């Protein structure tokens, strides 16, 4: 972390302080953060460090730890179930990022306009992402039922035969992606909508005078200007899709077989079904590295968008 300097930090350091404060400037403010530092050290930093320690141990719940070095990691990369879960995660993540980004951006363009009942409809649109994932997942499970589910009935109305949804290895991941898209497209919409709200007017006025049509204006003015916000949405969505757990766990528990077992589900089963604490911790460490890299990317994108939280 010491060698990584973010662009905004550099800029900050280069600027002279606008107001001269007394010498105890920083320590005085640290006191405000002290209780949080203690709690964060206990429930966040301690678990991280302990996980790192556990990942080097052969440890099952009930037994004691035994130091094995990097053997857990070596074993993981020979474990076909782990490799397959990486594949499932990649498949799931790519589509669970791309589709919400496309639909969410389109939705933001729609909700950016003025129309009757905009506030009400926006609230309805945002509801899926606020709803309790478990509750929603239970309803989706009932809707996917091959014989009695409402989705197969609706498909039959438009002449499409019954689908197996989450009951077939071929369709289970696309079906879970459907739920994920339903759930999280609103978050992308909100982020992009925030970007659209800050757009300047002048470029559009001069483009209109030059006779540009809607598509040209979107392609050459709107899209470049909101791109930083879309980038932020892409990074957040990627991290969230990697972490997806509740809906997958409730609807399929990784099944049928291991067809929808993502990294997170694999991790849960290793830890709390097979009680292989050391092995599961090694998965957490790998997960953690991926998430940190994506978080740094997010910070970078966030600074570029000059986005004030």
């Amino acid at each position: 972390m010491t060698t990584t300097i973010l662009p905004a930090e550099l800029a900050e350091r280069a600027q002279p302080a606008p107001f001269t404060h007394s010498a105890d400037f920083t320590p005085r403010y640290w006191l405000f953060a002290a209780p949080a530092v203690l709690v964060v050290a206990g429930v966040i930093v301690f678990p991280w460090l302990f996980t790192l320690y556990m990942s080097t141990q052969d440890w099952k719940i009930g037994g004691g730890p035994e130091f094995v070095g990097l053997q857990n990691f070596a074993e993981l990369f020979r474990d076909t179930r782990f490799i397959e879960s990486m594949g499932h995660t990649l498949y799931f993540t790519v589509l669970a990022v791309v589709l919400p980004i496309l639909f969410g951006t389109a939705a933001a363009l729609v909700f950016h306009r003025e129309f009757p009942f905009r506030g009400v409809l926006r609230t309805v649109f945002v509801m899926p992402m606020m709803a309790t994932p478990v509750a929603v997942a239970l309803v989706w499970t009932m809707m996917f039922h091959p014989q009695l589910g409402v989705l197969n009935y609706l498909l039959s109305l438009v002449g499409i035969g019954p689908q197996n949804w989450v009951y077939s290895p071929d369709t289970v991941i696309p079906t879970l992606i459907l739920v994920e898209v339903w759930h999280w497209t609103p978050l992308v919409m909100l982020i992009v909508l925030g970007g659209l709200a800050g757009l300047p007017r002048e470029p559009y006025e001069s483009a209109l005078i030059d006779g540009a049509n809607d598509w040209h204006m979107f392609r050459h003015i709107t899209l470049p200007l909101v791109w930083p916000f879309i980038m932020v949405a892409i990074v957040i969505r990627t991290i969230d899709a990697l972490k997806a757990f509740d809906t997958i766990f409730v609807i399929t528990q990784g099944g049928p077989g291991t067809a929808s077992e993502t990294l997170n589900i694999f991790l849960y089963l290793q830890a709390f079904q097979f009680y292989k604490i050391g092995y599961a911790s090694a998965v957490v460490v790998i997960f953690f590295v991926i998430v940190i890299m994506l978080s740094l990317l997010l910070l970078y994108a966030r600074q570029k968008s000059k986005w004030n939280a």
Partner: protein
Amino acid sequence: MKRLATKLGFYASLFVLVSPAVLVFLWMISLSFKNELDNTAFPPVFIPDPPTLKNYVDVFAQNNFALYLWNSVLVTGGAVLIGLAVGVPAGYGIARGKATKFAILILVARMTPALSYLIPLFLLFQMTGLVGTITALVITHLVITIPIIVWIMIGYFENIPMELEDAARIDGASSWQAFRHVALPLAMPGVTVGGILAFIFSWNNFIFSVVLGGKNSRTLPSAVYNSLTFEQISWGPLAAAALLVTLPVLLVTVLAQRQIVAGLSAGGLKDG
């Protein structure tokens, strides 16, 4: 003519965007008000006729639903209150002290999968005999509430001009008084936003209670999930329970949608 076509296209896309959300929630409501016969009928019955409250009565009569509701209130309430008490001053300290590194740590904590905290905390609670207690769940839910509150408060305090606090201190106020009587009142909208989002993410959390909750300390989401696996699946009561679990969150969304939209487009991060 062209204007009319554009307008029709616009409303068509609006319809396509909003209808999936509407359909799922309407179907949830429909299932919860129908008797078992109608719920398993094919072709499906869409409108409950006559609507029945039996499913809701069953939810309360056949399960410890009231107990789990109370557990959820305790866990979420405790984690949000402690989160605010600790997180709001921390947001102030980080924003004013320019503690960039601590801010980054909070952000990384925000992004890390919830499961990654669970193994060490589970072992810790097992050693201290806290597994299956409300206390263990409140402590664990701080992992959700503190990062979101701190992160949102940093943003709000950064946008409050420093000059007001400087003026107060020149008049002899202490740092605490400058925070308590000048900065905090101005940042109250942020406290509301942070509190609401922390409430929603904590209430919705499922996995912590699955692993750490005991038979009598479970929160609602994992209690409803358990009723699915361990009892005869019947759709009506299940849908009614699911609706009851998510109802508080949906009500807050409707009542505080302006704050939520502000918080999410600013903080932009959800819980995992």
